[in-house]
């Protein structure tokens, strides 16, 4: 190749490329990072549901020294209407951003969203299924987290969030989601274009009735697991509850008869990371971190997995969090209080809320005055 003889056009080119990048970021930011598009997000989508729950929380929040935030997934049975009723007795108001299908990684980002300055709460209640770190699913590769968290992720989360997945495929997906929000929202956008009238109707319902409907939600009061019988040595459910639907039966099979995972330390590492981040976020503040063990099920699995580590116990041992009595909710682990294999029914939820509210009051003591 002969040496170059053309003049260097660097500046002219660079200005155009930089301006293009800025305009693209501006356009993308204006539509997807400003909150503008969230007004049109389908409320029945994963990200839409999470947004609705965070909005509920913003409406429900009462500023003051006695507000307790509760995290979790669908198994978090706290009913706000019950805890609000008990507020006079306990002195504490409970908030709830627990969302079905979410995991500790989501909880960290959700908490950051509702409490950006880490100073709103007297305590944050974090539920776990067991205080022992049983490895039966790899939460680090929960793809659904990307869908839930898309609206909450910032450019500064790019590397930490992406690299928190184990598989390179999901790391790539997470990376793209943080960097290009449009990639995540475009399916939602297409659905909006395909039927704008339906979308407007969903949004109107969510705006006018969604929060109240979730607050007043009672659930199926009739369903319970009475009659459930399991032959553990034969590893077989011998009798299903009479009113169990096929879905509930399948869930009972999956949850009760699943094999005990081999210990890999994967869950410990995951929980250390995300619970650790929550702890760090509130270090040096008045907020106490409380771990609770949820009611485990309508019947108890007799299998005892080999779990030499426990992230929550380690954190509590360092004095960074409080472990609520492991057996606090044992009395709720009865077939008549469960709706299916893992979820309490309305009666169970009411009783759970009462126990939780009183236990939290017992641990935190009387609420401080302003």
């Amino acid at each position, binding site marked *: 190749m*002969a040496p170059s003889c053309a*003049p260097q056009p660097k500046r002219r080119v660079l200005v155009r490329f930089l301006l293009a990048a800025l305009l693209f970021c501006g356009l993308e930011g204006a539509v997807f990072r400003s909150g503008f598009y969230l007004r049109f997000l389908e409320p029945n989508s994963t990200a839409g549901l999470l947004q609705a729950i965070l909005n509920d929380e913003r409406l429900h929040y009462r500023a003051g020294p006695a507000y307790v935030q509760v995290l979790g997934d669908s198994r978090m049975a706290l009913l706000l209407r019950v805890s609000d009723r008990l507020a006079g007795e306990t002195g504490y108001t409970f908030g709830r951003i627990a969302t079905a299908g979410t995991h500790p990684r989501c909880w960290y980002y959700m908490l950051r969203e509702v409490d950006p300055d880490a100073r709103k709460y007297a305590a944050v209640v974090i539920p776990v299924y067991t205080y022992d770190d049983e490895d039966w699913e790899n939460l680090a590769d929960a793809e659904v987290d990307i869908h839930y968290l898309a609206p909450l992720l910032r450019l500064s989360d790019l590397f930490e969030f992406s690299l928190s997945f184990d598989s390179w495929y999901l790391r790539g997906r997470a990376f793209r989601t943080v960097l290009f929000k449009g990639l995540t929202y475009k399916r939602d956008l297409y659905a909006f274009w395909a039927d704008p009238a339906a979308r407007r109707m969903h949004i109107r319902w969510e705006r006018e009735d969604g929060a109240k409907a979730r607050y007043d939600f009672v659930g199926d009061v009739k369903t319970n697991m009475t009659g459930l019988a399991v032959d553990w040595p034969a590893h077989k459910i011998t009798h299903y509850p009479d009113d169990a639907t096929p879905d509930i039966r399948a869930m009972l099979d999956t949850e009760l008869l699943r094999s005990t995972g081999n210990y890999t330390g994967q869950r410990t590492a995951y929980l250390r990371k995300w619970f650790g981040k929550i702890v760090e976020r509130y270090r040096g503040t008045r907020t106490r971190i409380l771990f609770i063990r949820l009611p485990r099920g309508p019947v108890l699995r007799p299998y005892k997995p080999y779990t030499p580590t426990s992230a929550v116990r380690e954190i509590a041992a360092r004095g960074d969090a409080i472990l609520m009595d492991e057996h606090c909710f044992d009395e709720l682990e009865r077939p008549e209080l469960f709706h299916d294999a893992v979820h309490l029914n309305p009666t169970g939820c009411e009783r759970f809320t009462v126990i939780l509210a009183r236990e939290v009051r017992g641990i935190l003591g009387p609420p401080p005055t302003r």
Partner: protein
Amino acid sequence: MLFNTAQFFVFLAVVLALFYGAPLAWRKPILLAASYFFYMSWNAKFVLLLLTLTAIDFTAGLLIARTKPGPRRKLFLIVSLSANLGFLGFFKYYNFLADNLARLWGLAPHVWALDIILPLGISFHTFQSMSYVVDVYRGEQVAIRSPLDYALFIAFFPQLVAGPIVRAREFFGDLYHWRRPTGDEVLRGALMVLFGLVKKMVLADQFAAVADSYFKNIGAHPGVLAAWSGVIAFAMQIYFDFSGYTDMAIGMALLLGFHFPVNFRRPYLSQSITEFWRRWHISLSRWLRDYLYIPLGGNRHGRLATYRNLMLTMLLGGLWHGASWNFAIWGGYHGTLLAVERALGVKGESSGWTWTYPFRAILTFALVSIGWVFFRAANLSDSLWVIGNLFHGPRGHTLLGPWYLRLIALALLLAVLEEKAEWFERVVRAPAWVYASAMAILLFAVELLGVTEVAVPFIYFQF
């Protein structure tokens, strides 16, 4: 490594950084290494084939240049052409010939078939390589003395897989008189890459969904409207797919200081099939003209010979696309149309936009679209079924909803504006905010409207 993947753009960024960051003497080896890496990322084993063909044609070029005209010189040419056509024939046409021979012998169709994988880009690089050797033989091209330069000519990654088919003098002209791209060239190259990506991911891949749903189960979509919409969807898909790839290839080459010829000039605005072939896959048309049609006699030996030459050229052009009777029929169909137009005295040049223009353009587009049926349908009986549905039967339902019609309208508007006002070049030379806005909008279009869940392969990669 497809052009429409993040992986490829990382590769391209690394190549550009290494290329411009390295001293001049290192740049050719860097491009060659990158090109071989690109080729081997698909299937490393076939690099031996690429090396073998490169070595044969490089040596043949040198030997032809050193030998005086005569039978020995011709022998070197024949050896080189035989090697190229032999490899191409084996990999691409063996099973087709074996199946047809087996049928002739009354045997089961696949009795002699082999499990052959078609090497990436073999149709393109063999044609490019053969054109070099023929040019050297004709005395139109000096023999290249550096095997590294020649290997780069054959393997240059922007056009290795699906063209454009570059003539040796064009490529080596750039290589031996390389100069850093001007500001306009860099801006043009980047815009072409992005515009090509939009054509592929936003337009081609969306129309692919319609075309695939129609052609994969034609029985499920009876009726005239369904047939036309399925065929038009494929016409859109193949154009945006192939021209999108070509835009990206030309743009990338430009960013590296190489100037590739235009391969598409808005072919669906053509007023005749003759004009269509002057606007569609121009580098292949040019190759077929220079190395097949003219050597066959072109139009120099009377009308009938001209028609025969047109037909033969298009038949072979059809078979170049793939080894099946459908491609042969597609080629023959176009050959027939070209011969008829020649008989009617239709010129290939655009005759201006008179009031008859829309009728001519629509008729040409319809004829081209009918040809695409043979190109896309799984076999001959499917092709005939679809063509039957284009012209008779129940009305059926269109598969192209309002969204697709809007995309077609937008594409048509851009094509007409380019034809009449050259908007692309105006954007390149426009003030910074105009250029930057165009780039930002195209990026946003890829992000929002592009098919990003899966990387859909380019259609011409299979050829």
